[in-house]
């Protein structure tokens, strides 16, 4: 499994520099904000969910560490095109992956890269921050 430094050298720095979907949406159907209890960093998340419950667009903004930014970036890429139910299920798998439980690695795809973070429990909070906001947001239409 990757060490923290390998994680940084791999996906984290890459996504920190060029985060996907790092923008504000014009007409989101859902939006919300969250704070990382570890450091007080904040992020906001916006979604466009269509009538079938499919996430057709997603954008995030905010300040945060590279881990939370990279994780949020990869999250947005992963959930675009998925239904809300599928996205929520993916969070459960992601959470399982980071807390050393059995996880559906096929479903997780590229997100498996974060596995090594499980050895750094304090940083798990950073990696799941975007996902927690997502979970919150799908419950509240904007």
């Amino acid at each position, binding site marked *: 499994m990757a*060490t*923290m*430094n390998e994680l*940084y*050298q791999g996906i*984290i*720095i890459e996504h*920190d520099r060029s985060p996907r979907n790092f923008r504000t949406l014009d007409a989101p159907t859902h939006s919300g904000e969250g704070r990382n209890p*570890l*450091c*007080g*960093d904040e992020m906001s998340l916006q979604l466009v969910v269509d009538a079938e419950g499919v996430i057709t667009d997603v954008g995030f903004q905010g*300040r*945060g*560490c*590279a*881990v939370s930014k990279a994780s949020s970036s990869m999250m947005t890429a992963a959930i675009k095109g998925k239904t809300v139910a599928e996205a929520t299920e993916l969070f459960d798998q992601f959470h399982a992956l980071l807390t050393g439980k059995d996880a559906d690695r096929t479903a997780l795809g590229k997100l498996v890269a974060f596995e090594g973070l499980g050895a*750094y429990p304090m*940083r798990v909070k*950073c990696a799941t921050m975007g996902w927690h906001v997502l979970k919150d947001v799908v419950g509240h239409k904007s």
Partner: protein
Amino acid sequence: MLRSLDYAGSPSEPASLGMTGLREQFPILSATSRGKPLVYLDSAATTQKPQVVIDAERDFYTGWNANIHRGVYEYSERATVAYDGTRATAARFLGGVDADEIVFVRGTTEAINLVAQSFFRPRIATAGATVLVTEMEHHANIVPWQLAGATLVPIPVTDAGELDMEAATRLLAARPAMLAVMHVSNALGTINPIAELCAMARTHGVPVLIDGAQAVGHFAVDLPALGADFYCFSGHKLFGPTGTGVLWGRREHLAMMPPYQGGGDMIDLVRFEGSSFARPPERFEAGTPNIAGVIGLNAAMQWVMAQDTRAWERHDRELLELGRHLLGEIPGLRFIARPADAVGVLTFAMDGAHPHDIASILDGEGICIRAGHHCAQPLHVRFGVPSSARASFGPYTTEAEVRALATGLQKVRELFG
């Protein structure tokens, strides 16, 4: 000594002279972290413990563990004498106050809560609710006053990370109910001009509480010279056990304060219709205290008093200068402030690298620093940064460790480059 030090010297240079033989007394300092030799630069969060402190607790549990007070058998008597005798040690440690003025608490946080509830709160009706604090205070010296009903007025902090003494003079003249100020800043290292503040407060009749959490591990504190009304610190930041702390309060204040917590040991007569209470300090120590911890704290204070703390101060100052110099050369690194009079604390931000990322990458090198708001959110608001990275020294910190920090930060720079 650092005065003659070549800043370009190699990391394998010996630590400065005064500190020889000190590291060996701390068993943890020969450990590794992430497979690398431990470089512990988080002493402001908690200090490491010398063997004598660890042994003091263990010897108590294996040799003469018993509850204190009211027990007339040998072990209980011995535990009682050791526990209560620690008051005399603390009284000496603080420069010579009365042993009866020493109250044992869990730590600095509890000490301030105790004073806020038992001293400040009952006086609101007569003295008003305004508590003068500073913009650099730790949350432990902010929230307890708020919970006790205070209106807080902060003394501003300058760009250099120092107290604005002109503002302090003005604000004290408005006679707040209380002045509560930290001796040394945990976030910036600033050593505040406490004696001066106390003298000003005295002329206006304003009682002063000093949060000494970050002072005691760095230099000898001389309470009679400071002139405060209350002083407190935590054992775990003084090479002592967690769950211990000392509150010193002037005898005349303690005598008129109502109890804080109720229970065994703080009472005189207990009846369902009403109870009466013991004299200070017992009045403020309800229930079984952290006996083993206080015995360990005694060992810690004795240990510190046997050290050459003047040499500690010089060493700390030298490392601080070295650190400021070495880190100052790293592109994109910026100190939050550079107070002139300070203990060994380096607090900084780096362009493009979040403090948590900095700390995580250093962690991979076995280097322990802290990232975040350091329980000083208002100070971070003041400096316009959400969080910062902090390396802080103990007397056991070496030049090689400060150099390792600089090398590690270069790596961070390259990664985020």
